[in-house]
């Protein structure tokens, strides 16, 4: 192979990667549709807001599970951390939401960074247990240190308008949804950029085969710590949003079922292409709304049944069927699912 051939191959690969990273029209329609939904259905802004935040939370799990293949049963740890950090900051008088958001994400990121090295040892089972253990440990800490967290009573606080202009909370449900939408979109765009960057490609290599990725010269440990920290920050941001828009935090943020729910959301939507978490979260929230209106006590049963069927039927086959459907509707967009 001559030098010019190599250069041509490199150029082709570069062009291919750039083409993949380009925003496609279904994506633009997707985001505009959400925005329109907030304005068209102001009475449902509460549930839309909830779905947006859940979507951000699921996106944080997709970053580690979908991109890097790290299984976690403790993503709720960072949701709770972000929520409590934002709430405590607000109760100290720093009521600006944007500040609380950044603080919540930062605190979660620091704890993510500290706990990430625990994930590098052992297999999937060890990771499941470490993540689960960390989230329960933090929940217990929040429970014990009630002088700062309010303990089992939770913590009530008031919040200033966003950037001093837009009041959020119970009186400003639509503003709250818009605030969450803007945050979600910005963070999503960053995540999308990450996924298409060399860093994202290295993570995909780690996901497929960590040993080989290491042999190719990828520093797998550092990449995994980095993405885990970023995902923690995302979950922290989701928690901060949740705290600010509901203006209450309670210990159930750390619960096991939060981590299980978010995993379910991601699996419903499909992991690995970033939109899965958002779609799954919306489907999950709407489903829960419908089912719990019908049978308020036993809705978990139907969620469980859905999970069992999903696994037995084969997640891949469902994703493949969805991809075929997309290919029928929009042939050009079909390649996304595989990325």
């Amino acid at each position, binding site marked *: 192979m001559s030098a010019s051939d190599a250069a041509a191959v490199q150029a082709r690969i570069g062009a291919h990667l750039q083409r993949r990273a380009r925003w496609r029209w279904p994506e633009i329609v997707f985001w505009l549709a959400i925005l329109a939904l907030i304005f068209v259905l102001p009475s449902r802004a509460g549930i839309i807001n909830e779905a947006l935040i859940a979507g951000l939370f699921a996106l944080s799990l997709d970053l580690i*599970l979908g991109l890097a293949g790290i*299984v976690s*049963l403790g993503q709720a740890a960072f949701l709770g951390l972000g929520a409590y950090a934002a709430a405590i900051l607000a109760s100290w008088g720093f009521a600006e939401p944007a500040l609380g958001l950044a603080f919540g994400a930062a605190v979660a990121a620091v704890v993510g960074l500290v706990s990430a090295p*625990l994930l590098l*040892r*052992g*297999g*999937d*089972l*060890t990771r*499941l*247990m*470490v993540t*689960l*253990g960390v989230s*329960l*440990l933090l929940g*217990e800490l929040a429970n*014990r240190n009630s002088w700062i967290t309010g303990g089992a009573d939770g913590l009530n606080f008031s919040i200033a308008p966003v950037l001093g202009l837009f009041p959020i909370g119970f009186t400003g449900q639509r503003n709250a949804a818009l605030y969450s939408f803007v945050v979600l979109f910005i963070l999503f765009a960053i995540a999308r950029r990450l996924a298409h960057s060399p860093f994202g490609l290295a993570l995909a290599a780690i996901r497929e085969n960590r040993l080989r990725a290491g042999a190719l010269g990828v520093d797998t440990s550092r990449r995994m710590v980095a993405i885990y920290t970023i995902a923690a920050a995302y979950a922290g941001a989701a928690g901060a949003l949740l705290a600010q828009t509901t203006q209450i935090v309670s210990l159930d943020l750390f619960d*096991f*079922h939060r981590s*299980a729910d978010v*995993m*379910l959301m991601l*699996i419903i939507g499909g992991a690995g292409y970033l939109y899965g978490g958002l779609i799954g979260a919306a489907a999950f929230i709407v489903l829960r709304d419908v089912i719990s209106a019908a049978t308020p*006590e*036993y*809705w*978990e*049963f139907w*969620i*469980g*049944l*859905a*999970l*069992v069927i*999903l*696994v*037995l039927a084969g*997640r891949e086959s469902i994703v493949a069927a969805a991809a075929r459907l997309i290919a029928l509707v929009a042939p050009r967009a079909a390649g996304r699912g595989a990325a």
Partner: protein
Amino acid sequence: MLTILLDGVAYGMLLFLLASGLSVTLGLMNFINLAHGAFAMLGGYVTAILMNRAGVPFLATLPAAFLVPALLGVALERTLYRRLYGASPLDQVLFTIGLVLMAMPIAAYLVGDEPQQVHLPAWMDGRIEVHSVGIGVYRLFIIAICGAIAAALQIFLIRTRFGAQLRAAVDDARVARGLGIDVDRIFAIAFAVGSGLAGLGGALAADVVGGIDPSFPVKFLVTFLIVVTVGGSNGILGALFGSLLLGVLDVAGKYYAPSIGAFIIYAVMVVTLIVRPQGLFARGDGR
């Protein structure tokens, strides 16, 4: 002091009984069964309901608390679990979480949300004094029965033909099949025994944890997982020592340092994972 030690040993023995089934499925068969607590819950319910509604004496309910979860375990293993033996850990986790999410509302629907109490017979409820050390009779009973089961399991696994076949099937299912071992049957029996032991553990634990309620599978899931992590996943003895260590530390910690007591078992787990990821009592490199 000795009382606390004995309480801790009894608690550890209970943990062992509850988790031993998990150390078979998870440790030996390498299947992540998060629904293990549901079988324990079932065992607890069988005992509580037989006692409270049918008036069966406590001891007589224990065989049923073993058999019912064992039968359910075998049925589920044959129909559902076996499809996932080769699946990725993520699929196994999702599947068993699904089972847990289904089990809890079913329990709440059939039995109700309030904890079902197991009332011990009077002769078990008392304490005896040995050299001025107070020992709960029920604690002694737990230690005796769990110790016997642990010994039986260890002998069963090491000395019998079935134990050898199970270990062979676990090490390499394909070669074991080639040698004429009926791997499917072996796994089904192992799963049934594990589920049954969990059920028995649930029945015995009902009094200690203040009744069985629908949230039992989730509440104790973490404890089971910690036991298996600390004990190491290959072998009964590892699980036994791990359980005893955790039981004693937990009870002593809650007694001497109540403010940090709840953290001790988590701390033990984290330290274990850092120092010996394969488990404190595991031989070789583990999995």
